[in-house]
């Protein structure tokens, strides 16, 4: 048995550093918010010849369409994010670009979201997360017949949520990921995975408390963590193997989504023994003293 709980301060320190740097990043860099939330237009064109940014930009500018970002990948594929335009304007731009460059364009993607819809999406997302947390809390309180277990599991899940929001801001700033609906999905999945992992440890604690009611909580908790460690690592490893494969060779549309899930899996695995259990121990100690 390893005395995991002895290094409680170290775990809290690690978590604090990671979360704080995330919060700093959110404060200084913020996010690239996708059109799902902010409204606007995404366009992707495939040209049949080599193109340059400077060929295309004036076409948008002449029409007084604001360009938020424009990039060219693989010498002939154009991605642009602009203010909200409709399908007629898009067709005009495409026709004009074809004429100007004497090229053929294949429309790969054209998405427009109105600004009101974006706001609505944010509200809905927040409500869904709150209801999910409440549901998990209620279920755990019911399953373990003790509110403290539910609380500790939710705190660990919120820890993971903060880690994700923070690191995503860094990814957003340095790699250009967009905060979109898929990110929300990743957040909620991570929360459920984190709780999933925590339950396995708590289940052990519950078992030992029944069997060895004489031992103090610390011993029991250390034992539970030690015994579930292999399972936790193995399980995370299998999920990580799947996700790494997707990050490296999967499609680029879901790359950041999968990357977020990957970070979520790592922090979800970490938070069960190193956040949820120490917090449960704190809660239990408060009761006995």
């Amino acid at each position: 048995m390893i005395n995991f709980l002895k290094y409680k301060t170290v775990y809290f320190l690690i978590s604090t550093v990671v979360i704080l740097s995330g919060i700093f990043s959110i404060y200084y860099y913020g996010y690239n918010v996708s059109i799902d939330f902010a409204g606007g237009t995404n366009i992707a064109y495939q040209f049949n010849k080599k193109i340059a940014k400077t060929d295309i930009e004036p076409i948008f500018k002449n029409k007084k369409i604001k360009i938020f970002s424009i990039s060219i990948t693989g010498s002939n594929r154009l991605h642009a994010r602009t203010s909200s335009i409709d399908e007629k304007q898009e067709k005009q731009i495409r026709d004009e670009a074809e004429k100007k460059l004497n090229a053929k364009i294949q429309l790969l993607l054209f998405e427009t979201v109105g600004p009101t819809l974006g706001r609505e999406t944010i509200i809905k997302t927040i409500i869904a997360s709150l209801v999910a947390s409440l549901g998990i809390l209620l279920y755990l309180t019911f399953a373990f017949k003790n509110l403290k277990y539910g609380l500790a599991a939710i705190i660990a899940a919120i820890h993971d949520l903060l880690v994700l929001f923070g690191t995503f801001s860094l990814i957003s700033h340095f790699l250009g990921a967009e905060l979109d609906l898929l990110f929300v999905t990743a957040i909620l999945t991570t929360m459920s995975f984190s709780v999933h992992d925590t339950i396995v440890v708590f289940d052990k604690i519950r078992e030992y408390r029944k069997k060895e009611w004489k031992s103090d909580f610390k011993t029991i908790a250390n034992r539970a963590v030690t015994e579930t460690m292999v399972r936790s690592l193995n399980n995370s490893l299998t999920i990580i193997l799947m996700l790494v494969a997707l990050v490296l060779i999967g499609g680029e549309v879901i790359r950041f989504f999968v990357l977020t899930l990957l970070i979520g899996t790592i922090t979800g695995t970490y938070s069960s023994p190193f956040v949820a259990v120490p917090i449960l121990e704190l809660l239990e100690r408060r009761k006995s003293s």
Partner: protein
Amino acid sequence: MKTSKILIGIFLLMFFGIVYIDLPQKINLKYTLGKKNISYSFNHPNLDFKLFGLTIKKNFSTQLGLDLKGGSHLVFEADMKNIAASDRTDALISTRDTIERRVNLFGVSEPNIQTLKVGNSDRIIVDLPGITDVSEAVGLIGQTAQLDFREQASLEAKVATTTPLFLQMSKRTGLTGKNVKRSLVQFDQTGKPSVGLEFDSTGAKMFEEITGRNVGRPVAIFLDDFPLSIPTVQQQITGGQAIITGNFSLEEAKKLSIAINSGALPVSIRLIEQRNIGPTLGQDQVNKSIIAGIIGLLAVILFMILYYGRLGFIATMALIIYGLISLAIIKTIPIVLTLPGIAGFILSIGMAVDSNILIFERIKEELRRGNDFNLAIKWGFGRAIDAIKDANITTLLVAFILFNPVNWDIFPQFGLIKGFALTLFIGVMTSLFTGVFITKRLIYFFYKPK
């Protein structure tokens, strides 16, 4: 002993059924063996047979979402300002029906048109697979429904009887939906349903003239250039009231009345969201994700076998069965696969292994404590079940909220997230079955104590 043989029989039968469903629609094999060319082509046999008088027809094909096969996703908001609150639901539904009719005229295969209420806003969502020229589609959908009355091209000329009736009705009378005040379902003396029309004053006068010159002849009612009904005029009609009779069922009469009302009371709609995805982008993404999934799966299998030895082989078998069952469920329902959906499926593979790891660790623990093999398996399973159950219920809970089955408007109603939630849900349910039930059978069958 006998029951276990029957069980194995049932198991094998189910297994082959599932493999049958999983087979792809079409396989073409072509390779050279020595000097022989072998060419083999396989078409998935679809179910099409009669059983106790019931026709069973089912084709098991994988349905791909718009993000994978390309197409347009359009969200319209209906402007209900001028429509009384009590008529709004009807107006929305008839607008939807009108759009559906127009989309069908456009020749789109498998369009999906839904209405959605979000707070005070009424929306119509139109999914058009394979349509990328969206300006044309939007133009077609965006017009308000137009009702108009037509008569035969020439009143004097003898009409060639071979021409279908609705093609003869080519002369527009100028009387349109604008002149119809409202339309409602009525019943004649014999109790048969018919559709009544009420014109405004101009409409009444025009209708009087039209019926006056067409006694004994047909007058047609067209909706969006599509003939709705071609009744024959019995006598000149004055007073601005018309009745369309015909062999309507109540349902048909209602539909017709709604359609006419939608022409007469058009709800103007505004496009608030549109997403168009070209087909090449999607295919590329699917291929990459599938390759990634296979490589990830191989890595997981390798790890399980290296770490757990013979138990790892059993987990691999359970995992393959898991994959086959979930694929069969996805194809049978059928679930429209989107890119996040595929990600959800791949993620659930990782989670499926977890049940096995939990059980194996418990069994090893029991063996370490000196229990004999049978007891270790029994206890190992029993103990692991609690954790597996609690852990998976929370995942199911989250998937349920994301999927939002009742379409509550306080939760997300977005297609992509739903796709992810649904495959995750199916994945977790299936993994509960294979991870616990199937693995137990496999262990008793293959795993003998040393």
